[in-house]
């Protein structure tokens, strides 16, 4: 473990040692789960250094964002972190609404809070499930995936799409909650805690899993902050930052929940933080469902951003004009010539958008601040000194989603 203690990169002389192996890992590998590549330098089974490569899925999302309107671009955000697409939708329109200065209706704030937390649960299920799968716990993975399916079913009932939801709109959402959606979310709230207990019994004290993850890939609190880690990765290292508490957006300020942290900073701590966050997310969803306000789900006609309801279009002159103007490309939103940054606590960390407005209904620049990039850049630091088999445990615990990584 002496190599792990020194954070500095190995010297050039050390690299040229003949006995070191170079191993290519990825871009297509079952344990990368997505398309990314690692060039590992091995001494026997120990990893001396790792060189992460990315860009295999680069699709120019930020360039596309300069050519699509604020409502169109939400379909592209679905494709960023496709494990929890609806959280990306919320993040994008949160940033757009910050730029435009729109106040959402209370019902919309609660609905967005509920779906964000459901997205968090489905993201953490996949991340922990994949860590379990990579370390040999296949049953755990199947338990996790079955519950993801239930959440997909809720989203499908809500907006018609399982994966690429494109659910939010500027100033609102595309569909209001129907009684069936509420019924399904309530059923999920009833059944999921029991599955979560089962999952914890399967893995949390499983000797093999604990041995594979405890003390592996340790990230100290200072390193976590200096290297830009956010979300569960930072919280597992003792950073208490959580935007839901620190900069309350949507309905989080009104709800009672705890920020889950751990001190160890290893793969096991990241697993525990994610497991605990799912329980807190359930509490948030339950409270938000109980206090779900009535009233309109989209902002009113006076804000001139969300399409008016059909009854308003057909019976009022303001509704007709507003519908017409929003459908025309040159007289839609009033966008300030200004720039703003807004972020949400996405399942993976701080997901923010820096948007430059130039008066048109398209962003002049739509920068996405992806948590995966920062986390992937930490990877060599975490893996040095560990064995080759730990690569998959560390990679899984960082929850790197290549589509968000490359955009």
């Amino acid at each position, binding site marked *: 473990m002496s190599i792990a203690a020194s954070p500095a990169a190995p010297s050039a002389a050390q690299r040229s040692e003949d006995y070191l192996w170079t191993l290519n890992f990825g871009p297509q590998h079952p344990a990368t789960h997505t398309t990314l590549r690692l060039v590992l330098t091995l001494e026997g089974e120990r990893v001396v250094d790792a060189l992460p490569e*990315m*860009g295999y899925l*680069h699709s*120019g999302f*930020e*360039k*596309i964002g*300069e*050519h699509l309107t604020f409502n169109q671009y939400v379909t592209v955000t679905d494709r960023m972190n496709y494990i929890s697409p609806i959280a990306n939708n919320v993040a994008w329109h949160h940033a757009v609404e*910050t*730029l435009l*200065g729109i106040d959402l209706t209370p019902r919309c704030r609660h609905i967005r809070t509920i779906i964000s937390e459901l997205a968090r649960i489905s993201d953490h299920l996949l991340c922990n499930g994949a860590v379990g799968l990579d370390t040999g716990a296949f049953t755990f993975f199947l338990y996790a995936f079955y519950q993801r399916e239930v959440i997909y079913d809720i989203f499908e009932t809500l907006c018609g799409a399982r994966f690429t939801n494109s659910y939010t709109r500027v100033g609102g959402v595309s569909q209001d909650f129907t009684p069936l959606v509420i019924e399904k979310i309530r059923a999920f709230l009833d059944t999921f805690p029991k599955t979560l207990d089962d999952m914890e019994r399967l893995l949390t004290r499983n000797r093999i899993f604990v041995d594979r993850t405890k003390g592996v890939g340790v990230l100290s609190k200072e*390193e976590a*902050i*200096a*290297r*830009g880690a956010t979300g569960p990765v930072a919280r597992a290292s003792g*950073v*208490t*930052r959580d935007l839901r508490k*620190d*900069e*309350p957006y949507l309905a989080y300020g009104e709800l009672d929940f705890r920020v889950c942290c751990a001190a160890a900073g290893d793969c096991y701590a990241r697993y525990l933080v994610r497991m605990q966050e799912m329980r807190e997310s359930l509490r948030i969803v339950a409270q938000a469902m109980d206090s779900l306000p009535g009233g309109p789900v989209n902002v009113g006609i006076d804000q001139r951003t969300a399409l008016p309801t059909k009854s308003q279009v057909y019976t009022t002159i303001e509704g007709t004009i507003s519908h017409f103007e929003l459908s025309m490309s040159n007289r839609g939103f009033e966008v*300030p*010539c*200004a*720039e*703003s*940054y807004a*972020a949400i606590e996405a399942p993976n960390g*701080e997901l*923010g958008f*820096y948007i*430059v407005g*130039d*008066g048109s209904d398209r962003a*002049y*620049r739509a*920068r996405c*601040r992806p948590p995966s*990039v*920062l986390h*992937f*850049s930490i990877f060599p630091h975490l893996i040095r000194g560990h064995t080759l088999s730990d690569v998959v445990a560390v990679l899984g615990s960082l929850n790197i989603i290549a589509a968000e990584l*490359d*955009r």
Partner: protein
Amino acid sequence: MSQPPTDGSVPSPADQTAVAGRPGARAVPAELEVRFGTLEHSSFRGQERIVVPVGRMFDILAFLKDSGFDLLVDVTCVDYLEYRGARHRYGLVYLLAATADNRRLIVRVFVDDPDPTVPSVVPIWGAANWLEREVWDLFGIRFTGHPDLRRLVLPEGFTAHPLRKDYPLQGRGERHNFPVLSRDDG
């Protein structure tokens, strides 16, 4: 503050008071202006922003790090080529946050062609390493002192910087020049 902000955004008085949740809180440390003179300062939707000259940006950012902004949230860039009223071509954006008291600050640095160069902040925040590589890759801003300034998302052989505004959405055909490897060659 006699000059308007560079990108043409004029903060209205209503925005000045709209600091979310923390009315009256000022993110910029008072000592900053004592040490570095008057900096262009503005606020929009409660987000504070300072504009910093290239020559002093490293010292100012190092000072901000020491005064509590320990988390570098993002480094990015905006190409103002087609922006109405813009005076500079590139505007770099440094999003800073303080984990202790949740302050946020946006630091802007403006550079121009023909050789847009800024000092790297990797010695201050390790997080800047890949973020600056991405800005180099997509905008062609050179970061002096960066330990490993390679392209991040695009392949090594790529010549253009596609997030610049003079680069077309559908590309210039660089990908057609990539060598095609057959199974026998490989």
